[in-house]
């Protein structure tokens, strides 16, 4: 275990508290930079989605995790970013311009959503954001002169300095990675400065924040705007990666997926947002794998344990039917969410911290270190 000896206030301000961080994050960055030249294009494609989901996850974390304002409307912000990009691109606006414009417009709309949200708490805010998302979805489907309605819109490849960047190229991956890294660094900067602390203060006690001079309304709107803007940037990348967008892609289901990203990753940590994104993106390939390979493998196992050829084939076909059932994805989602809430409320990152501590303290680790306190909250209506 490492004990830090602090000699300067700087020690508490810097992002990497000690040299160990440089080594591990340097290694991680190196791996991420070589990845496109080593890994298959399918894996790279998944990695791009991880970057986009993680960016949205961080955005949602700012709003929900740090400012304590729930949102089930982030798919709408993603849609606004994506459609702004698609619309502007149609008129020959260059990539950097429409990228920024999409972020700014989404941020502005986020702020506009933030204003009515000021007076709303808890579930009232949740339903307000859901309503907002439905209205956006409907506008996208009906405002045909701009959005092309339910037909959807095509998006050409990114054009950087006159060169077209294909959505499967390493350059596009680097672009997404850069956006993610910048988002994370920006968020970390925010968290170590007055604005970030004001967010956390609002989350924990609005009354106290106000009495300390925090303009609660202003900071809530700021939080909405920042979160929406980042989601808007992610929306541009999302549109380019899919190269086709239509209203039914940006449903409540997607908003819930974003919430799952921060829940599974571990609320209140940026590491968690990234881990959660990896998890969500991996579910699909996992199901494909289940469908394609598992029947064979299970039949193989059955055969090794002495089942006859006939029985093994039988097992294989049964597993295959099961794996290709329609609702399997939803059921697995549901089970995963419930299991995480029941058994690992700190999420994947919490699990990682526990494992790390276990080895650091070996053999002194106590399970009770992370024991969850039941709080039996009194009625939240009396807020």
């Amino acid at each position, binding site marked *: 275990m490492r004990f830090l000896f602090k000699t300067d206030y700087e020690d508490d301000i810097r992002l990497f508290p000690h040299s160990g961080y440089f080594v591990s994050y340097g290694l991680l960055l190196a791996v991420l930079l070589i990845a496109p030249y080593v890994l298959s294009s399918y894996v790279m494609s998944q990695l791009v989605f991880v970057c986009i989901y993680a960016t949205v996850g961080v955005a949602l974390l700012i709003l929900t995790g740090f400012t304590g304002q729930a949102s089930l409307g982030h798919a709408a912000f993603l849609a606004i970013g994506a459609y702004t990009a698609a619309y502007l691109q149609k008129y020959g606006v260059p990539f950097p311009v429409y990228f920024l414009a999409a972020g700014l417009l989404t941020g502005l709309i986020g702020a506009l959503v933030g204003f009515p949200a000021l007076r709303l708490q808890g579930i009232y805010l949740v339903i307000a954001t859901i309503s907002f998302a439905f209205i956006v979805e409907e506008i996208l489907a009906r405002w045909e002169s701009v959005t092309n309605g339910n037909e959807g819109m095509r998006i050409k490849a990114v054009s950087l300095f006159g060169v077209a960047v294909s959505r499967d190229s390493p350059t596009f991956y680097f672009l997404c990675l850069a956006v993610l890294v910048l988002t994370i660094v920006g968020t970390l900067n925010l968290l170590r*400065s*007055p604005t970030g602390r004001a967010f*956390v*203060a609002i989350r924990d006690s609005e009354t*106290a924040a*106000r*009495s*300390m*001079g925090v303009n609660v309304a202003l900071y809530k709107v700021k939080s909405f705007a920042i979160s929406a803007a980042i989601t808007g940037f992610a929306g541009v990348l999302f549109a380019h990666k899919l190269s086709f967008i239509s209203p039914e892609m940006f449903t409540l289901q997607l908003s819930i997926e974003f919430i799952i990203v921060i829940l599974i990753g571990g609320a209140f940590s940026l590491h968690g947002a990234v881990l959660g994104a990896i998890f969500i993106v991996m579910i699909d390939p996992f199901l494909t794998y289940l469908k394609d390979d598992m029947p064979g493998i299970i039949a193989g196992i059955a055969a090794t344990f002495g089942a006859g050829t006939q029985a093994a084939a039988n097992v294989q076909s049964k597993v295959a039917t099961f794996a290709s059932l329609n609702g399997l994805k939803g059921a697995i989602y549901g089970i995963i969410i419930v299991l995480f809430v029941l058994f690992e409320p700190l999420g994947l990152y919490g699990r990682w911290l526990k494992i790390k501590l276990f080895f650091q303290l070996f053999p002194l680790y106590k399970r009770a270190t992370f024991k969850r306190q039941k709080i039996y909250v009194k009625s939240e209506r009396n807020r």
Partner: protein
Amino acid sequence: MSYFRAESLSLHFGGLKAVDAVSFAVEKGEILSIIGPNGAGKSSIFNLISRIYRPTSGRIFFEDQDITEQPPYDIARLGIARTFQNIELFENASVLSNLLVGRHRHSTTQLWQELLFLPSVRAGEKVHRRRVEQVIEFLDLEPYRDKLISGLPYGVRKVIELARALCSEPKLILLDEPSSGLNVEETGDMSFWIRDLRSELGVTVLMVEHDMSLVNRVSDRVIALNYGRVLAMGSPAEVQQHPDVVAAYLGA
């Protein structure tokens, strides 16, 4: 002109007169205590000053400025800080960041500067930290600096609330029952700190308190309230002997 002045302040909830035409003044550098039985309207007066409630009528002046219509967050900017009866700390943050929120009214950096963490932000953070460390030293909070609030005992939280208020470098501090839930020893510490607040930091103190020993030890003047009205005002000894106050407490 008084330093801080409340003029016929009233707060009515329907027919209930929580505060009824209360007037008082606080002189600069004074320690003034408000006492009274439960439900006398003591905390309501604080909530009126910090604008959690809007007064039904009456005006509040601070440094000759009418602050009755100021938004709540501006009260802190004017230099009035407060603590809460039942502790309102930021539970899931460290002691240090709680105290740094106290510095909020002194932060001057813009959002975009913070996103990039420009040198100006870094320099500002160091200044804030230095101020916070001074308060930590003043209140002996060194062992708790990096602890989360949610894991700390009640007595320590009470001190941290005081510390957070002090971090904002207030001119006037409102202490809402600073000794509630503290043991005798901790109450003793609190009384020393309250006196030091005035002598070392030059802060004016307005305090709501039940513990008469604490009130006697620190206050210059005392106001006794009952049913939202002022019963008596004067030195601690005078007020305690006032027949109306005795009647209010003993129910005679």
